[in-house]
């Protein structure tokens, strides 16, 4: 393994010779490096595969995938029904397939029901359609409070739900991940699928927000 190390401070000759070595990375980085190099030598890890995974999750996989799924469900009733009946297959149909063999379940928001997704134990999340979870989703505070006081949590996300709206909480696991289908915003009847997808935010697909509206979307969507 080759690590390229760049100079971490300007060249200077007035410090000790002892300091003229490479910068030692912080402790967790050293442990990751130790683990990776050990497993690479044992043939368990292929560094090239790691690069590819990081590349994929940094660039290709993210909430835009889920937004396309939701937008399709808004314009195509048959697709929507399929998504509700068998989300894993309906999502795979658009080219998004889980890497961990997880089962997807789509839940729809209506005037009377609002769905919110959490993982109370760790951070299970529908990566395939939403990418890597945001920090708040992984936080102890969200995991505990979403169960205890979902209405208050939603209010902090700017979502003030009427008391008549039922909140359904979905606890993700390693096997089952949930995707919330937010309500299609009013005033978008003549919008095409692509423009609609721009209204679907990550938070809306976790249930921590609504889809944007033609007013809040801004830009020229």
């Amino acid at each position, binding site marked *: *393994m*080759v*690590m*390229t*190390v*760049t*100079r971490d401070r300007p060249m200077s000759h007035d410090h000790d010779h002892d300091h*003229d*070595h*490479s*910068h*030692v*990375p912080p402790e*967790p*980085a*050293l*442990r*990751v*490096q*130790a*683990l*990776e*190099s*050990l*497993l690479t*030598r*044992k043939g*368990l*890890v*292929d560094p090239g*595969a*790691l*690069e590819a*995974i*990081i590349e994929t*999750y*940094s660039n290709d996989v993210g909430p835009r995938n889920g937004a396309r799924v939701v937008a399709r469900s808004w314009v195509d009733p048959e697709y929507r029904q399929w998504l509700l009946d068998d989300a894993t297959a309906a999502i795979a149909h658009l080219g998004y397939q889980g*890497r961990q063999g*997880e089962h997807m379940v789509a839940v729809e928001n209506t005037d009377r029901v609002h769905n919110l997704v959490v993982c109370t*134990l*760790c*951070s*299970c999340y529908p990566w395939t359609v939403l*990418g*890597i979870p*945001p*920090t*708040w989703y*992984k*936080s*102890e*505070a*969200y995991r505990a409070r979403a169960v205890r006081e979902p209405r208050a949590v939603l209010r*902090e*996300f700017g979502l003030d739900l009427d008391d008549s709206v039922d909140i359904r909480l979905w606890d993700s*696991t*390693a*096997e089952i991940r949930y995707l919330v289908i937010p309500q299609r915003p009013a005033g978008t009847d003549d919008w095409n699928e692509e423009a609609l997808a721009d209204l679907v935010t*990550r938070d809306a697909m976790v249930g*921590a927000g609504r889809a944007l509206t033609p007013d809040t979307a801004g830009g020229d969507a």
Partner: protein
Amino acid sequence: MRSDEQPPFEAPWQAQAFAMTVHLNECGVFTWSEWADALATERKRSADAGIADAPDQYYLDWLRALEGLLTRRGEAAAEDLTAFREAWVAAYETTPHGHPVHLEKGFEALGKPAPEGARR
């Protein structure tokens, strides 16, 4: 509590630990359920110990879960991990600025070979 578009990782080591986990799962070293259990256990341990839930803590728990799972599976012995970590430190400390850092040099500097069973 929120920030809409943030980078998925705050440091390269976090991305590396994440990728290693996905890779090892795909290679069948552990199932995703086993992994989720290991991560949940570490998350709970930190919370129970009253450790502040800073963003960094999540990946520190992640790393500890990964090390623990692999150690229990006999894929990465704790003493091997320590030896490799020490060798990396020695490699950094004996490599001049701006030069590539090689693990082998670290083992040489320490005057000991890579642990048995962890050699090519």
